[in-house]
């Protein structure tokens, strides 16, 4: 495993420790979503037809758009880390800003996507949904829960981006001290990872 920690008094900065901590946090998130995927697997296994019909109700186009922009945003955070490592503050801010905007756009899309469904009564406890039978109720229940919790992560991500953006501007995050940015990046990639699986499971079944 890794080299033995030499003297690391706790006043000393240990970026590697921060990063390890972040990874552990990511693992907890993976399991949290993992359990949702497990539920999805179980219910889809038991209601294959209803899930297919449910999937057809969901707008693929919005899904594709959101997938594409989320992937782009993942690349841009990664690039902003490269920029910081090279000491290019403006470039880093530019990339980070792009990511931030994309995150907001993602949410706006989500708003319209949910909005139309709710209008038709397709929400938990909604009349239209309850008429469609058990499998469909489950499908939409999972759809709202999973994409809802995912959206919550996006919102938290936006908060983090704003904070990190400020810090870079104030030169608190710079060439030799950028764990915050790095960890925020890791977090954002996690959000992306989850979406990579949500997308085919909800938008692409037919």
């Amino acid at each position, binding site marked *: *495993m*890794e*080299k033995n920690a030499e003297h690391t008094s706790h006043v000393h*900065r*240990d*970026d*590697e420790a921060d*990063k*390890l901590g972040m*990874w552990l946090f990511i*693992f907890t998130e*993976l*399991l949290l979503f*993992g359990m949702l*995927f*497990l539920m999805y*697997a*179980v219910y889809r*296994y*038991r209601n294959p037809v209803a899930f297919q019909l449910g999937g057809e109700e969901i707008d*693929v186009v919005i899904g*594709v758009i959101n*997938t*594409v922009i989320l*992937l*782009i945003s*993942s*690349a841009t*955070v*990664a*690039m902003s880390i*490269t920029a910081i*490592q*090279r000491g290019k503050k403006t470039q880093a801010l530019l990339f980070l800003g792009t990511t931030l905007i994309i995150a907001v756009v993602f949410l706006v899309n989500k708003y319209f996507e949910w909005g139309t469904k709710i209008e038709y009564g397709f929400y938990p406890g909604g009349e239209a949904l309850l008429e469609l039978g058990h499998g469909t109720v489950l499908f939409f229940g999972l759809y709202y829960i999973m994409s809802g919790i995912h959206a919550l992560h996006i919102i938290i991500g936006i908060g983090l981006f704003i904070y990190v953006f400020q810090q870079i501007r104030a030169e608190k995050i710079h060439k030799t001290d950028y764990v915050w940015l790095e960890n925020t*990046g*890791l977090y954002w*990639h996690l959000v*992306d*990872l989850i979406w*990579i*699986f949500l*997308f*085919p*499971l909800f938008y*692409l*079944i*037919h």
Partner: protein
Amino acid sequence: MSEEKHHISSYKSHLLVLLALLILTAASVAVTSVEMGAYNTLVAMLLAGAKATLVLLWFMHLRFDNKIYAIFTAFVIVLFLLVLFVTFFDYSYR
């Protein structure tokens, strides 16, 4: 260690990964219309798995960082898959 030399990925490599991800996305949308029965889901999951691997290895730097992160991540994924597997001992035979 903070003294350690960091690997700096170039913009170009990030863009290449992005390109690959977009191609895989396009592929997964495209294959949806091909009728393969149960295999549709399998293919979709394989493609998503490929995308996830790209993100983990390049964007999340597992390729360049200390090996321990990659080992842990693999362990967590295996653990989850095992839990899923064991759960289906129940549902497959009900």
